[in-house]
């Protein structure tokens, strides 16, 4: 009968209805939150006005007036504060992405080494992990920076490692392509795309037909466009070689000791944690898996690569993601050793404009966006490596 279909819950009204109650609670909490934020914001604006402190984001379009030591886009002191922040962001992104790649590579080595059966390798890896994990990162950065700036020769006495390549306190100086760089870059890109495409196709064919995937046709595909462009532009290709001057070098490319110290410091520090994450991941793989791999006559290396690591990744990816987030945020320690990252440039802007609230707000938004992007990528990757349909 129809009377049975109407449940007593559905019939309830007002607070006794759990659905309504849940909704109302949400609305009240939201309103309280919005009210608090509005109160704080009004309070802030009122206080700033009462103390005649200038506010607003107009300063972003004003000329910055200071020089920046390293920039991946064109920079001059007459550019705006907004562009200065962009320069800082790019500097941060370069360090963060290189740091993630390097620390992952080093972390793999450390993680696998710490599980090695070799009586020398494993204790060494453990020692490294304990040493690096238990001292502050800032201290390590100071150490690496001191090593690079104290130990290396002065620019005037810099040794020439390769033709046109010098290593000095002022950094690593090397020749860069002056003309034909654009086509060459395009060729490298095209070659890499072809290489990846071939690899993908070959693997699929190997899975389907059992014909082994070969590397050399891919390498050929990679080399062809580069060789073509190199021959085509051979006449016009020229290098901008660093020339020794009174105070170091002019021209050419340069990697500053600040960037190097930051990269080494961040990578080695995070490699210790990543090594531990991987070790835990590998240990989580059941012993039977290794035994089964051995029964199939796979070598230790093969069983690690084909059986253990793929399963270990499933456990390792979530903590790995949080380690990457740490690394990205820790790039802000750059300011201590003079690398012009986002935080460092933000600090300078605060001092020149006095607009701390606005700049800090921008910095928070940018770091938040950066963290969310890394997090989103790692979630996507996690979903990909997770065992599907397995119990």
């Amino acid at each position, binding site marked *: 009968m129809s009377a049975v279909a109407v449940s007593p819950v559905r019939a309830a009204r007002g607070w006794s209805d759990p659905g309504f109650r849940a909704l109302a609670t949400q609305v009240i909490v939201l309103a309280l939150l919005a009210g608090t934020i*509005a109160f704080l914001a*009004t*309070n802030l*604006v*009122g206080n*700033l006005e*009462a*103390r*005649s*402190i*200038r506010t607003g984001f107009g300063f972003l379009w004003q000329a910055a*007036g*200071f*020089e*920046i*030591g390293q920039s991946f886009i064109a920079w001059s*002191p007459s550019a705006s504060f907004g562009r200065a922040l962009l320069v800082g962001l790019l500097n941060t992104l370069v360090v963060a992405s290189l740091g993630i790649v390097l620390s992952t590579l080093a972390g793999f080595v450390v993680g696998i080494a710490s599980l090695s059966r070799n009586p020398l390798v494993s204790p060494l890896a453990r020692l490294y992990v304990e040493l690096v994990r238990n001292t502050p990162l800032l201290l390590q950065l100071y150490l690496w*920076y*001191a090593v690079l*700036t*104290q130990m290396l020769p*002065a620019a005037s006495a810099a040794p020439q490692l390769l033709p046109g390549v010098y290593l000095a*306190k*002022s950094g690593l100086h090397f020749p860069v392509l002056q003309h034909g760089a654009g086509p060459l870059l395009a060729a490298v890109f095209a070659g890499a795309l072809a290489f990846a495409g071939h690899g993908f196709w070959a693997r699929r064919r190997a899975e389907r037909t059992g014909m082994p995937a070969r590397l050399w046709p891919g390498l050929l595909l990679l080399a062809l466009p580069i060789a073509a462009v190199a021959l085509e532009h051979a006449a016009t290709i020229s290098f901008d070689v660093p020339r020794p*001057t*009174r*105070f*170091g070098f*002019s021209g050419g490319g340069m990697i*500053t*000791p*600040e960037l190097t110290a930051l990269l080494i410091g961040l990578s080695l520090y995070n490699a210790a944690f990543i090594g531990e994450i991987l070790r835990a991941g590998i240990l989580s793989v059941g012993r039977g898996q290794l035994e089964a791999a051995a029964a199939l006559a796979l070598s230790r290396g093969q069983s690690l690569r084909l059986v253990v690591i793929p399963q270990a990744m499933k456990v390792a990816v979530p903590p790995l993601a949080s380690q990457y987030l740490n690394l990205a945020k820790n790039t802000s320690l750059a*300011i*201590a*050793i*003079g690398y*012009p990252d986002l935080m*460092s440039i933000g*600090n*300078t802007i*605060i*001092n*020149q*404009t*006095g607009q*701390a609230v606005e700049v800090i707000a921008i910095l928070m938004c940018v770091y938040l966006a950066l963290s969310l992007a890394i997090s989103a990528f790692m979630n996507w990757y996690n979903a990909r490596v997770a065992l599907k349909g397995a119990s």
Partner: protein
Amino acid sequence: MTFPFKSGLAAAALAIAATFSAPAEAGPTLDAVRKRGEVVCGVSTGIGGFSIADSSGRWTGLTTDFCRAVSAAVLGDAAKEKFVPLSPQQRFTALQSGEIDMLTTVATWTLTRDASLGLIYAGVYFYDGQGFLVPKSLGLKSALELDGASICTATGTTSELNLADYFRANGKTFKPVVFEAQNEARAAFFSGRCQAFSADMSYLSSVRASDAPNPDEWQILPEMISKEPLGPIVARNDLDWYTAAKWVMMALIEAEEKGITAANVDQMKDSQNPEIKRLLGTAGDMGQRLGLDPGWAYRAVKRVGNYGEIFERNVGPKTPLRMERNSNALWTKGGLMYAMPVR
């Protein structure tokens, strides 16, 4: 939405202020200082000759002495002061938020800072300028020879802007290496990362005197690429406190002009010179006009000496900093130190 809310707050604040404020003789900061029995001054975290803590934790230096003078003038014989060491990044915020009563650091007086940070400069206790410290071994004679050099400096100062301006104006280039703190900039410079270290001349003298491995191996280049007047800063919302701080500065300079020192200030009280009588409070009501008592200037000089004494004791030629008076001499001796008339 926000407008009535804000004016409501303002009305409430006014009502509270009207109920509780004492007869308007002294401003809120002066009242707060008296009630606390202590002047809280923000100082630089450690610059020899200007503000540095010794091994027993006592702060010495030219800027800390100014804070002591204000404290003596305002609080009488019970004068006390507290020094809060602040980095360049923290210093303005600390004053804006009311954490300190006065900033006696080496912060340069600029239009932007004076007009838009909610602060105001109460005078100048040191006329400084930015320069370059370089190793003598480079054999440089002028800063213009630094074309293409790496220059270490610290953020949070006007130095970064002056460097960019100077090199652009002269059609030269340089590579800045910018650190969060002067200590790190200094260390990088001494390790040879940069060919020059740029900061205010006063700071360079301090660094050469106390941090250089061997002071004689380093030279300060002759060019002064900027004007860096350093002075005490107070919050903009209390004119009475601002006036008091400003006139303590005047009193210290006036005392030097009239030959009043910490040693002879007691005899000077008997002087028949009307200007000295007004300054030391034996005639007139100058103290009262400032919301202070008649002995304000007497106590300031008695405690820290006149401006010249403060200079000689902390940074003068006989100190490790070896600085000449130059611009900081009295106006009667070719310098810029000039006290407005105490009358």
